[in-house]
């Protein structure tokens, strides 16, 4: 079954008097438990596509069906609900709340989902244990290393048990060893049945996925299966 079905979507921005066609005509399907990388140079429209896939933005034209729901016609609040319950974001800059500890950061989506406090705490704790941070619950982001911060972000993405995990350059701010660890974590999540969409401009990172969609000038240039996938290994320890 398709989790994501997009049909001839376009995104046009108005910059001053000029129209910028960030996406011209993109159609694609992503199935459950796929591991897809979206690649492209800057200006190719990959960020725009990611924002639309992540329901942060809606397309100007075309249809986006997200596990049966027509997202392109949703209003702000409905989009927020979709983001909250069915999408897990992992960002390049982690985007954790700096004044909150790891546990509270992971709890946040559950707060917006309206879960009772004890259940929230339990789930958040489990998510942190799952990413190997069971001993860092009360640490604030500035007390954690880059890799640990990204793990907190991944725990936050996982805690609502979303349909897709959307990772935007997740290793961009990490050294290669730590990046490898994070990729190993994604690999593990994929093995456990999660659907992962990875946005990157690095060939090496993209080759961890099973499928690569290459964008150029707002169009899909190539949609290919990766023959020689890189299977990452956990490095022992970090930093």
């Amino acid at each position, binding site marked *: 079954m398709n989790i994501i079905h997009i049909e001839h979507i376009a995104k046009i921005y108005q910059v001053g008097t000029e129209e910028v066609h960030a996406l011209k005509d993109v159609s694609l399907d992503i199935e459950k438990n796929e591991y897809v990388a979206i690649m492209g140079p800057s200006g190719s429209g990959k960020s725009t596509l990611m924002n639309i896939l992540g329901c942060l933005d809606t397309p100007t034209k075309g249809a986006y069906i997200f596990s049966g729901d027509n997202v392109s016609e949703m209003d702000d609040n409905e989009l927020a609900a979709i983001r909250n319950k069915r999408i897990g974001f992992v960002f390049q800059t982690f985007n954790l709340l700096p004044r909150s500890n790891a546990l509270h950061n992971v709890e946040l989506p559950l*707060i917006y989902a309206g879960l009772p406090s004890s259940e929230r705490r339990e789930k958040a704790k489990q998510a942190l244990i799952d990413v190997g941070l069971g001993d860092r619950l009360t640490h604030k982001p500035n007390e954690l290393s880059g890799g640990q911060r990204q793990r907190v972000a991944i725990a936050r993405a996982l805690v609502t048990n979303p349909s897709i995990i959307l990772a935007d350059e997740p290793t961009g701010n990490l050294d290669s060893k730590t990046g490898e660890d994070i990729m190993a974590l994604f690999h593990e999540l994929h093995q456990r049945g999660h659907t992962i969409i990875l946005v990157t401009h690095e060939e090496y990172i993209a080759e961890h996925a099973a499928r690569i969609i290459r964008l150029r000038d707002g169009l899909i240039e190539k949609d290919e299966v990766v023959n020689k996938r890189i299977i990452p290994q956990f490095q022992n320890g970090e930093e």
Partner: protein
Amino acid sequence: MTSKYWFEIKEGLKISLNAIKSNKIRSVLTTMGIIIGIWAVVTMSTAIKGIDLAFQTGVSALGSDNLYIDKWAWFNNDVPWWKMRNRKNISMKDFKKYKSLAKLPAAVAPSILTRQAVKTKDESIDFVFVVGTTADYIHTTNLTFNQGRFLSELESQGSRNVTVLGSEIAAKLFPAGNALNNFVRIKGHKFKVVGILDKQGSWVLGNFNPDKQVFVPIGTVFKHFQKESFGSLTINVKSPNSQLVPAVTEEALGIMRKVRGLSYNEENDFAINRQDGLLSQINSTVSVIQIAGFFITGLSLFVGAIGIMNIMFVSVKERTKEIGIRKAIGAKRRTILGQFITEASFLCLLGGLGGLIFAVITSLIINKFLPTSIQYQAVLLAVLISLITGILSGLAPALTAAKMDPVEALRYE
């Protein structure tokens, strides 16, 4: 569903507490306007309540169902003062005629006011209100005694040199508290103290305050201080109850016109005064204070609200990224709106509590002059006002935050 809102409010409170903690000085400065506003509103309502209370107790000591027949109208100025000045004095003869004709009053007594120096061997007070009256005077009032008694019938008829002292006068002249049966000199004449009043009134009554008066038989006034023809009497009339006050007034009007020999087409050459006049005068003073107070309060709350609004705009701008993150992981517009409104309200509430603390301190000081304490209604009002101010001033910044585009907000550095 309500529990969901509760989470959001709780989360909002936690966030605001954090934000306030990390910007302590800024928060205090911002809430200054609210602090001053709330302080003003609570202090003012406390003071007004105090004046009211002081007045009530004072009036009840003077007697509440009383009329005062006088040459002068005390409060209403329908008749020009020079006309009143030219009226005949009210004499003892007038009083006696009135007394013999009046059927309704519970008690009547004449009184004449002079200002004299009152001395003991060691102490002296100038310009004391010396009230010359009769034994019946006590029945027209609710005065109570600390020691001794009022002037007796015999003493007042015989114009004996005896006196009753108001509490403040007694305390000043006899610091040792041995006034009773001691002697004072009024304008050089020796008077025996037969009674000392309890503390009755309060300074709000001004010259009517019995604490600052001295009572002597009316005859001694005419004998020692001033000629009978020189001053005009006030006739104190006590109605048996408040329902009968209009009837007593009507009767007094009729009798006095007869006593004064007025024909049907002549104006009254006397006035029948009531304490209501004093009440309305105090009320008008109070309402001036009230208007000024509300103006000051309103102004400082307005300035405070602008301050809060300003700081909330700054806060929203500073936390654009945070808003982006929250939106990305599922915060709805309403949630973000609630968060910032909660923060503004919380800030205002803290300001309000600060103002309340200052108001409590101020009321302790006021308490030295007025019998009062902070009213719980005022506290409730203060909390309500600061909450409303917070909500109103947080609204616009919170709306900006709620409307932010998550993509843009996430990109903000």
